[in-house]
């Protein structure tokens, strides 16, 4: 009798704790959302949009590295595929509304992601990284020579156009809220995937692939789907970036960009949802600050040094370390 009373008592307190932590999370989310909505009043909107685009790119990338354990060294290909497709379509067909161009860009990157995945999935680990890097380089050559990318010059003066044919995106504030909405959509999608049964299987693959195989999961199929979603979201980020800055260039397709998104994710914290966002914010800020000062030419060596320090000293990244600290000291 008293035993079961104890149990219900215990359950109640646990439930209470759970509710409290959920409430804390909810408050945290609302505060962040409010800050994001108010941000353009304080910070230059274009800069914020740049951060959000790269944050979405990094979140997409982290679905692979952080939640599936696959290191793609060719994600720039998807960013560029999305950007070029959207840029070309919006420049060439004035009747097209902006969201149509963005959807087309995302679709192009998704298809490309499927092609990459079918080839790359045949090897594991570091081979996977080398293959994706080589495929992205192949695509880089395509972008240099293809007639629709503008070659070395890239695409300039891409019109932002009207969202749904109604909202004028030349207005920076409207543009910002559109980018914010797309970013949040992408973020919530990844969050939903990670917490779904499908996401659990991805985690199992990351932890122990042979075991996942022996449990009867079609591991290759799971990996391909994760890769395709990640590529599609990276393409979406590229499309948004093209609309925001009204240009698409070879920089987005270069291996350097693939390295940068790895750094953002690693620095922020792989395997955490918030990590890539923090990492992207940090790296974009750092690059901007450096470009303003006397160290403008030293961006690459500094990024390289951050890479080395992160790998050696704190592999769980900023968010990962904060989580560890909170767990250790506050519970």
């Amino acid at each position, binding site marked *: 009798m008293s035993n079961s009373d104890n149990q219900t008592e215990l359950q109640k307190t646990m439930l209470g704790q759970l509710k409290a932590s959920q409430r804390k999370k909810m408050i945290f989310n609302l505060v962040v959302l409010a800050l994001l909505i108010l941000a353009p009043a304080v910070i230059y909107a274009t800069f914020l949009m740049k951060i959000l685009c790269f944050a979405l790119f990094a979140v997409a990338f982290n679905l692979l590295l952080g939640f599936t354990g696959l*290191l793609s060294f060719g994600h720039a290909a998807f960013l560029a595929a999305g950007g070029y497709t959207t840029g070309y379509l919006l420049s060439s067909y004035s009747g097209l509304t902006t969201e149509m161009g963005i959807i087309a860009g995302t679709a192009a990157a998704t298809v490309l992601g499927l092609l990459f995945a079918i*080839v*790359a999935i*045949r*090897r594991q*680990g*570091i*081979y996977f*990284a*080398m*293959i994706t*890097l*080589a*495929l992205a*380089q*192949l695509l880089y*050559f*395509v972008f240099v*020579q293809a007639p629709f990318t503008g070659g070395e010059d890239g695409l300039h003066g891409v019109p932002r156009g009207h969202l749904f044919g109604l909202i004028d995106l030349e207005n920076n504030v409207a543009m910002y809220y559109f980018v914010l909405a797309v970013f949040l959509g992408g973020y919530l999608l990844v969050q939903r995937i990670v917490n779904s049964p499908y996401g659990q299987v991805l985690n199992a693959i990351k932890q122990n692939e042979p075991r996942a195989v022996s449990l009867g999961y079609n591991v290759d199929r799971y990996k391909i789907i994760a890769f395709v979603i990640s590529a599609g979201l990276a393409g979406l980020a590229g499309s948004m970036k093209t609309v925001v800055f009204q240009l698409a260039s070879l920089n987005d397709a270069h*291996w350097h960009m693939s*390295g940068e998104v*790895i750094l953002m994710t*690693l620095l922020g914290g792989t395997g955490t949802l918030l990590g890539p966002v923090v990492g992207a914010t940090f790296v974009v800020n750092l690059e901007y600050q450096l470009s303003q000062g006397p160290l403008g*030419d*030293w*961006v*690459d*060596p*500094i*990024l*390289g*040094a*951050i*890479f*080395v320090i992160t*790998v*050696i000293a704190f*592999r769980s990244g900023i968010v990962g370390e904060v989580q560890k600290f909170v767990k250790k000291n506050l519970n």
Partner: protein
Amino acid sequence: MTEILGIPTAVLFGQLLLGIINGSFYALLSLGLAVIFGLLKIINFAHGAMYMLGAMVTVIMFDVMGVNYWVALLAAPLVVGCFGVAIEYFLLRRIGGQDHIYSLLLTFGVALMIQGILTNIYGVSGMRYAMPDVFKGGFRLDFMYLPYYRAWVICVALVVCFGTWFVIEKTKLGAYLRAGTEDSQLMQGFGINVPLLVSLTYGFGVMLAAFAGVLAAPIYSVNPVMGSNILIVVFAVVVIGGMGSIAGAIITGLLMGVIEGLTKVVYPEFSSAVIFLVMVIVLLIRPSGLFGKEA
């Protein structure tokens, strides 16, 4: 003028020669990668930077101290090799027990640093390195003109590749290396200094890259970014060949150079992409690579 399939033989053989030269570089570089991979189980992303360092050190030593080509051929790889050992000792060793992805990212960061620093000092426009006088001129063969230096590059690259193969497959030191590849813990148990072996292996792989850099200095433009593009091609070569065998890495390297050269004759715009396409085809047909053992 004689023709084969409508292509003048001089053009054909000329491109074939260039292909074999490029292939020699691919072979030297992928050999170094394979040696490092064998014992350390990591992919050295800084390999391209080491190749570049080999060439840059050669040029800088000549400009500053007047060191000639023959001395540089030994000295530059030694300098870069020592640098490599330092990287292994101070950086790579610290993350020995971690996932190999981290060592790959670490070497990528190192490559970014080296390349960025040198770009700031020397710019990307490229430096010239005068061809040693001995190599001026060439053989005039019936079907083509073969410059002395290119003949030298092919010969010396083949000799170095064969020498490396011989040391690893036929000598006692090579036997240690191969044993370490199989089970380094057991080797340690037999009283062999594995950490030292690891450092030296990394240093040796890096030396091979730097040696390729010295060979490249008189014929290619020497600049801080010369290593990054060739490295990606070499990665594709490594994927095609598989890193299971030393001989496989050498043969694949030469073969891919030739294929690239021949593509230049038929369809020049496509030549920079052909190796990547071969990689895709090989992966679809034989995922473990031409000479690979495991799937």
